[in-house]
């Protein structure tokens, strides 16, 4: 028997606050399920959707980290992306798990959440049904994509070989399911042409949301990978971040901006960017944070440095959050007197589960091979 070189209770200090927050979150979540939405949230008839839905529709595009890296690695056969599929898939899976948990807590009638899987109840016309259905099956795809990492550690060979042999089919399924639900989150709001502010409402929403998933997924992947490699003291691959991801992000971001502008031109709404009062401020803030700053970084000398690309990624992710916040919450019209500020329990439950996701990531990164030796 070999003696481990690490002491048995070698738990990093940062784990304790994360674990504490997770515990608080889980406790409050149980309270929410047993007491209802009234005592635990500030949601009301004028704001039926709030913080939790905004988080859901934000975590799905950045969870696209798994989608983009797996697409480029498996189908464009890019060796550099192949090396980072595992951490990206883990990050994606954690985003989607968060979505699952937060969505369940948000459902008023959570005791029959499975109804959307029952054929006699499915509404094939509903984009929300499609999103729920795709997210569920895509989460299973992500579990399968991650499974070899876990199984190889425990030497469970037969299922691992089976999964790896079917990986192309699994990955293809993942790409198709992702394309469907990433765009359909945009389609959710097509129905609300009368409620969503005209600056953001456009029939191009599905395309815009698909693009957001591509570049914000890349941004999250770049951040997660670099931070993990630094923490684990592994060599950091500068050229992957700068020459591959940075360049791809700026192309996607430029196309995204072009589509947005075309949308405004087609509907003759370019003037709204200047004449909508507070909403004008919001769209400019969104554009500057999420598009102009990262484009500026990526097209300048800063974009030649790894940290420059990572900062661009931070801005991209903030921009997507800002956009989802407006479209799912702030930009929807409500009576002037109606108000909604998230209840502290809504915030603490969200913080708790996000802390839990960080904790799980850190534990898996410490104990499993996220960066297998290059063959």
């Amino acid at each position: 028997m070999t003696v481990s070189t690490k002491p048995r209770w070698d738990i990093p200090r940062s784990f304790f606050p994360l674990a504490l927050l997770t515990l608080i979150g889980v406790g409050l979540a149980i309270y929410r399920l047993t007491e209802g939405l009234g005592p635990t949230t500030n949601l009301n008839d004028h704001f039926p959707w709030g913080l939790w839905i905004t988080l859901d529709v934000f975590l799905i595009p950045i969870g696209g980290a798994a989608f983009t890296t797996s697409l480029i690695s498996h189908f464009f056969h890019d060796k550099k992306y192949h090396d980072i599929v595992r951490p990206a898939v883990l990050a994606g899976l954690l985003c989607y798990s968060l979505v699952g948990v937060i969505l369940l807590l948000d459902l008023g009638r959570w005791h029959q959440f499975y109804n959307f899987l029952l054929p006699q109840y499915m509404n094939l016309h509903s984009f929300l049904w499609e999103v729920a259905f795709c997210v569920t099956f895509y989460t299973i795809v992500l579990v399968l994509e991650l499974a070899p990492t876990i199984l190889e550690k425990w030497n469970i060979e037969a299922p691992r070989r089976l999964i790896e042999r079917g990986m192309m089919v699994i990955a293809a399924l993942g790409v198709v399911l992702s394309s469907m639900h990433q765009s359909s989150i945009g389609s959710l709001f097509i129905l609300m042409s009368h409620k969503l502010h005209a600056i953001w409402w456009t029939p191009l929403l599905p395309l815009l949301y698909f693009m957001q998933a591509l570049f914000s997924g890349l941004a999250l992947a770049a951040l997660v990978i670099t931070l993990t490699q630094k923490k684990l003291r592994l060599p950091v691959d500068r050229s992957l971040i700068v020459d591959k991801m940075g360049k791809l992000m700026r192309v996607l971001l430029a196309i995204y901006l072009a589509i947005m502008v075309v949308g405004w031109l087609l509907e003759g709404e370019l003037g709204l960017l200047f004449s909508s009062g507070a909403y004008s401020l919001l769209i400019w803030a969104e554009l500057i944070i999420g598009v102009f700053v990262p484009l500026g970084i990526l097209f300048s000398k800063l974009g030649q440095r790894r940290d420059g690309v990572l900062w661009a990624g931070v801005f991209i992710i903030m921009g997507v959050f800002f956009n989802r916040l407006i479209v799912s919450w702030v930009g929807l019209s409500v009576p002037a007197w109606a108000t909604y500020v998230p209840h502290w329990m809504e915030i603490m439950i969200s913080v708790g589960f996000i802390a839990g996701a960080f904790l799980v990531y850190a534990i898996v990164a410490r104990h499993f091979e996220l960066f297998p030796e290059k063959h």
Partner: protein
Amino acid sequence: MSINRRQFLKITGLGVGGALLGVETSLASGGGGDAGDHIAMLYDATKCVGCHACTSACRDWNRTTPELDASGLYDAPQDLSADTWTLIQLYQGEGEHSFVKRQCMHCIDPACVSACPVTALQKLDNGAVVYDRKRCIGCRYCMIACPFHIPRFEWDKVIPVITKCTLCHDRLDFGRGPSCAEACPAGALVWGHRDELLAEAESRLAANPESYVDGIYGKDEVGGTSVLYLSGVPFEKLGFPELETKALPELSEGMGTVILPGLIFGGPLVLAGINYLSKRQKGEES
């Protein structure tokens, strides 16, 4: 039962109707059948005296709990709520005033029915838009999607339900009218088939054009609704949104039938193509 029949009609409507009559068949008008035959209500704000007989009748039939004022003596709801499915409000402007009744508009092609992921909201053959708690998961997309801001939620319940006016569909089955419409003593609220009520509204407009603002609200809004309004003051002052005449689900469902099959069938083909090309390219490089 009626749901199964509706689905049957939808399927045969698509198949047989599509073959015989051309493409445009029953799918667009959610409930199937002719919207003119739907049960409808006409509210004439110029005749309403604000007596609240309709709201009391609604409570009686639907057994909702009164929302009392501070004295505890007067049923005084301020807005639609989980317990208040219809409401009389008062608009007061300069030199003009008007009552206005609120309830579900029972759209011909309802956004809530299109939005609901689990078909908990359905458009019945008689025109009523109804809710089934057995199906509902409480996601509240219906509340967000409704252009008239009608569905409400039991926020204070552990296991809540969505609530809204049902057009008293459980009375319609017995040949009775919506209980609010049957209770109205002023003739401000009447019920009948939608085409008859539209004709009635047109003739009132023609007979007394000076008493009304032009137009029937609900005739064309979002593809038409089963609750129709006449008013002496502009509709937007009574809180009615200005809406397009196209049914809201038309655009999104139309996009869905193009984009989704495209991704499901086109996606794997594109991936196979990319896979093949990039492999060949890599092969040439090495």
